[in-house]
């Protein structure tokens, strides 16, 4: 059968393959090459070596600031999202009344798009700050906190669903045995439940880290980087470098490559940790 199937390559693979080539593979390779070039459009590229990479970090401190802001936002959000999501998952696996309804409500924000989420929270945060004579763009701290609250609202339900699936997969007899042996609630949590859901924790950590790190729409809608680019995350900074001023396309592409390398490193780390535990288990 494999031999016959081989001849059907054009039907089975070509449509996806061509689309993949046009939308991803060629742009990716061109992107790497152009990061070493000076260009306005993609056809007038002049090779300049590492100049763009140097400019990305030395022309101004925008990129470094954006990366630092992104890291701060990511660390706080990842911790709070995962703790709250895990707590809710524990509460929703105890057979309480209304569990299905709560699950529906908690997951709902995840389906709303980033641009819409940004404006929803802009109104609410500005409404609170108005009483004190401020707005979300008066101080970078408000923007940071706003982004963290927004991200929590959006992602808690999603992570909760994954944790619920993990908790429900714990074999019942293990929990029963621990109870018979007189393990208290805290010991059950740390010695049995958490070790059993480690795969879910790895997935959730990875999903929250990459989603927070790559955040763009929410950032654009909530503060658009204001005040004075202080709440600008890496993705938004790259966008503004490309499209903000003429003459910085190469710098934008170099920043994009650096950004890609960081995201890829996070992904490889995740792969390494997942693989390591699978061997151990």
């Amino acid at each position: 059968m494999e031999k016959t199937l081989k001849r059907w390559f054009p039907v089975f693979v070509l449509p996806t393959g061509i689309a993949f080539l046009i939308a991803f593979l060629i742009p990716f390779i061109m992107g790497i090459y152009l990061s070493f070039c000076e260009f306005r459009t993609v056809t007038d590229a002049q090779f300049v070596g590492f100049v763009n990479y140097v400019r990305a970090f030395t022309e101004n401190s925008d990129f470094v600031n954006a990366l630092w802001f992104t890291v701060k936002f990511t660390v706080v959000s990842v911790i709070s999202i995962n703790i709250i999501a895990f707590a809710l998952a524990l509460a929703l696996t105890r057979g309480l009344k209304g569990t299905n309804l709560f699950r529906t409500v908690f997951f709902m924000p995840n389906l709303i798009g980033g641009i819409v989420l940004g404006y929803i929270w802009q109104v609410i945060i500005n409404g609170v700050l108005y009483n004190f004579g401020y707005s979300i763009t008066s101080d970078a701290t408000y923007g940071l906190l706003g982004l963290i609250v927004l991200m929590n609202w959006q992602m808690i339900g999603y992570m909760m669903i994954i944790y619920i699936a993990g908790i429900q997969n714990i074999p019942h007899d293990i929990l029963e045995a621990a109870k018979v042996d007189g393990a208290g609630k805290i010991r059950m949590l740390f010695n049995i439940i958490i070790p059993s859901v480690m795969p879910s924790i790895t997935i959730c950590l990875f999903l929250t880290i990459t989603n927070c790190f790559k955040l763009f729409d929410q950032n654009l809608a909530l503060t658009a980087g204001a005040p004075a680019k202080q709440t600008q995350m890496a993705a938004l900074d790259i966008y503004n470098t490309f499209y903000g001023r003429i003459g910085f396309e190469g710098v934008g592409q170099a920043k994009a490559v650096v950004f890609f390398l960081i995201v890829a490193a996070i992904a490889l780390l995740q792969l390494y940790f997942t693989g390591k535990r699978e061997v151990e288990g």
Partner: protein
Amino acid sequence: MIKENKGSALGTVILGIIAVVFLFPVFIVLINSFKTRFAISQSPFTLPDSLTFVGIENYIKGVRDTGFLSAFFWSLFITVFSVGVIVVFTSMTAWYITRVKNLLSRTLYLLFIFSMIVPFQMVMFTMSKIANSLSLDNPIGLILIYLGFGAGLSVFMFSGFVKSVPLGIEEAATIDGCNPFETFWYVVFPILKPTSITVAILNTMWIWNDYLLPYLVIGNEYKTIPIAVQYLKGGYGSIDMGAMMAMLVLAILPVVIFYLACQKYIIKGVAAGAVKG
């Protein structure tokens, strides 16, 4: 027994309070969509009263200013056809590269997985220029671009499932005289249905809400809903908050209806997608 009941009642009450907190932002947007723009920025947390109530004025203005109806149409058109095309073509590709074992298949598989970790910013400039020069900067061309971009995750998920489909069934179909195309559509594709639903849901959530990709590729001529909402911001950062609130309600409404209708599949699909991704 009584103690247990008390504990669970308290749990339900606490979860109930958290649920109210979760619904609060959407509720605020809804009540503000009926208020004057002045009242929205000054007192967003009060219900509209006789002074601040403006009826559906915000909705009329928002729909007119943003061209919401055409944005809704384009969002629906692009999402439905992109998701359909992705499910059809990536499932075929996944079956082929899982069943035909050669260097090309392995290379393609690795490239698809690799594409999943590349952030959009890496390719946004070059991709939109290429789309432009190949005249793909229209809703039909955008479908092809979504196929290319969605291929990574979708092929990966289908491949994972294809591995568990027993070869015997496919061989039986071949002996009965099916060519590979027929074998796939009559035998394999029906078995892939659960994965097809997961892939469709994950891609729908992504494409319906996607802002930057459609903005860069077709944003000059066509608006999708996220582009229409962002368009309200205008050039100098001034926003008509009334119209904005109304547009947010109209943007959320289809999502909520879709969610309530397909909730079971969505939650299952998201959990399945996460475990594999």
